[in-house]
C-alpha cells in the first residue's frame, strides 16, 4: 500500500514539474535560449505571493497579481537582456572579433540567476518559507485506502489546463502561428511582417506567466528558500528531457516519470528521492539512441 501511495504521489508531483517546465520548454523552443535563471525566477514568484498573502491578500488575488507581473517581467527581460544577447550570436559569425558569441544568452541568464538568488537571500534570508494555504495543504480526498492530497491534485489540474491552453494558443491563433514561424526562421518571419524581437518578447512573457503560476504552486506545497531555485531548474529540465523535447504533453509525461522516480526512490530510502530522480534522468540520457538534439516548438 505504501508503494501504491508513492506511485500516486509521484504522478501528482509530476504535475508540478510539468508546470515548471512549460516556460523552460517554450523559451528554448522559440529562441534556443536555455534560461538558467528559470528556477530562481519561480522562487521569486513564490516570495512575491508570500509577501502579498502576508499583506492580507487572499491567495487567489495574489496569483492574479503575480502572473501578469511576471508576464511583464518576461517581456522586459527579453527586450532588455536576452535580445541584446541573441544579437551577439549573429555578430560572432560575421565579425572577426571574438567574444561571448553564441554563449552570450546562456551566460547572461546565469549572471541573472546568481544575482537574483543572492538578492533574494539578502532580502528574505536563507530560511525556508512556505505560503500559508490554510486547510488546503493538508486536505485530502479518500481514494480507496489512500488519501489523495487536494493541493497536488489541483496543481496537476492546473498543469494540464496550462499545457492545453499553450498548445491551443500555438496551434490555433495567428500570434501562435507567428511564434512558430519565428522559431523556424526569424528572418523569413520578418519578411512576412512579424517583428522577431517583439515576438520573442511575447514568447518570454507567456513563458514567465506560466513560470509565475508554477512558482506560486511550488511555494504552497514546498518549503522553499532562495537556493531552492537551483533544484527547480534541474527538475524542470529533467522533465523536459525525459519527456523527449517533443510537445508539452511529452513534458507532462516526463514530469510524471521524474515524480515517480523521486517518490519511489524515497520509499526505498528516505534520503535518496532526489538522487533517484537524477539517476533516472541520466539513464534516459544513456538509453536514448543518438542523444538528444533540441527541436523547435510543435503545435
Amino acid at each position, binding site marked *: 500500500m505504501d508503494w501504491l501511495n508513492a506511485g500516486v504521489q509521484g504522478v501528482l508531483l509530476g504535475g508540478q514539474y510539468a508546470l515548471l517546465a512549460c516556460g523552460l520548454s517554450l523559451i528554448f523552443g522559440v529562441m534556443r535560449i536555455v534560461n538558467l535563471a528559470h528556477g530562481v525566477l519561480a522562487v521569486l514568484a513564490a516570495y512575491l505571493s508570500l509577501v502579498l498573502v502576508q499583506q492580507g491578500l487572499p491567495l487567489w488575488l495574489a496569483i492574479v497579481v503575480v502572473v501578469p507581473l511576471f508576464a511583464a517581467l518576461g517581456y522586459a527581460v527579453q527586450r532588455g537582456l536576452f535580445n541584446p544577447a541573441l544579437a551577439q550570436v549573429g555578430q560572432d559569425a*560575421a565579425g572577426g572579433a571574438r567574444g561571448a558569441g553564441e554563449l552570450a544568452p546562456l551566460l547572461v541568464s546565469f549572471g541573472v540567476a546568481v544575482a537574483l538568488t543572492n538578492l533574494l537571500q539578502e532580502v528574505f534570508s536563507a530560511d525556508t518559507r512556505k505560503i500559508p494555504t490554510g486547510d488546503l495543504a493538508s486536505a485530502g480526498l479518500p481514494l480507496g485506502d489512500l488519501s489523495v492530497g487536494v493541493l497536488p491534485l489541483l496543481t496537476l489540474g492546473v498543469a494540464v489546463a496550462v499545457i492545453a491552453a499553450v498548445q491551443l494558443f500555438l496551434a490555433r491563433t*495567428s500570434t501562435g*502561428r*507567428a511564434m*512558430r*514561424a519565428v*522559431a*523556424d*526562421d526569424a*528572418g*523569413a*518571419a*520578418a*519578411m*512576412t*511582417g*512579424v*517583428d*522577431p524581437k517583439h515576438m520573442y518578447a511575447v514568447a518570454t512573457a507567456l513563458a514567465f506567466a506560466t513560470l509565475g503560476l508554477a512558482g506560486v504552486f511550488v511555494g504552497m506545497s514546498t518549503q522553499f528558500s532562495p537556493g531552492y531555485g537551483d533544484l527547480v531548474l534541474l527538475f524542470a529540465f529533467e522533465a523536459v528531457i525525459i519527456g523527449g523535447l517533443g510537445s508539452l504533453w511529452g513534458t507532462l509525461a516526463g514530469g510524471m516519470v521524474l515524480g515517480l522516480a523521486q517518490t519511489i526512490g524515497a520509499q526505498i530510502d528516505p534520503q535518496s528521492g532526489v538522487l533517484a530522480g537524477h539517476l533516472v534522468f541520466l539513464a534516459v540520457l544513456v538509453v536514448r539512441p543518438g542523444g538528444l538534439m533540441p527541436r*523547435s*516548438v*510543435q503545435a
Partner: protein
Amino acid sequence: MNVLDVSGLAVRYGDLTAVDGVSLSVAEGETLAVLGANGAGKSTLLAALAGMHLPASGTVLLDGAPVTRVPAHQRVRRGIALVPEGRRIFGSLTVEENLLMGRYPKRPGPWDLRAVYDMFPLVAEMRDRRGGVLSGGQQQAVAIGRALLANPRVLLLDEVSLGLAPTVVAQLYDAVRQITASGTTALVVEQDLDQALRVADRVQCLLGGRTVLEAPAAGLDRDTVADAYFGVSHHPPSPR
C-alpha cells in the same frame, strides 16, 4: 507615379561592396527584370529593398515615401513583399499556415487563400502537409503565394528558377506571368534570361554591383543582354 524609386543604392558586406550605386524605378503595373550573373549584386539589391540588409547609402522610395531604413517587418506592412532566395518556407508549419503567414500584415487586396489555391491547384492539394516535406518547386509556389497574400504594392521575386527543373521553372513563370498580367507591380531578379524576358516589360542588367544596361524588354536582342550579362570579357570583374 512610380511605385518604387531607388537611387544611388550602395550595399556593403564588410569591405565588399555588393551593390554599388544602383538606381531603378518600377511604375504602377510594370514588371522590371533585373538580370546578371552570379555575384552581380542582384540578390543583395532585393535584400536591401526588402529591408533585410540596410544600405550604406542611397534612398528607396515606396509610392514617394522614403523607406530606406525601415526594418523588414514594417516594409511588408507598407507593401513590399519578397519571395526570397532559397524560398525560406517555414518547415514545421503546414502549407496553409505558411500561406496564412502572408496574411499577417492584414493588407486588403485581391489576393486571398482561394485566389492563391486557384493559381496553384497543386498547393491546394497539399494544404495540410508540413512545409519541410515539399519539393523545391512546391515550396517556390508556396513562397510566391505567401508573398501575394500580403497584397503588396510591389512584389519582389528572387531567382524563382534557382535549383529547379526547367519544366517546373516554366510552370512557375506561367503563374508569374498571370500575376504580372493581372496588374501586380513586380521586380524580378533572375539568371534565366528567357524566363525573365517572358514576364518583363523592362530589363536592367547588373555587373559587379553596377547597372550596365537598361532597355525595354520588347524586341530586346538576346546577344546584347548576354554581352552585358557576362560583362566586358577583356578585363575580368575586380574582386572589390
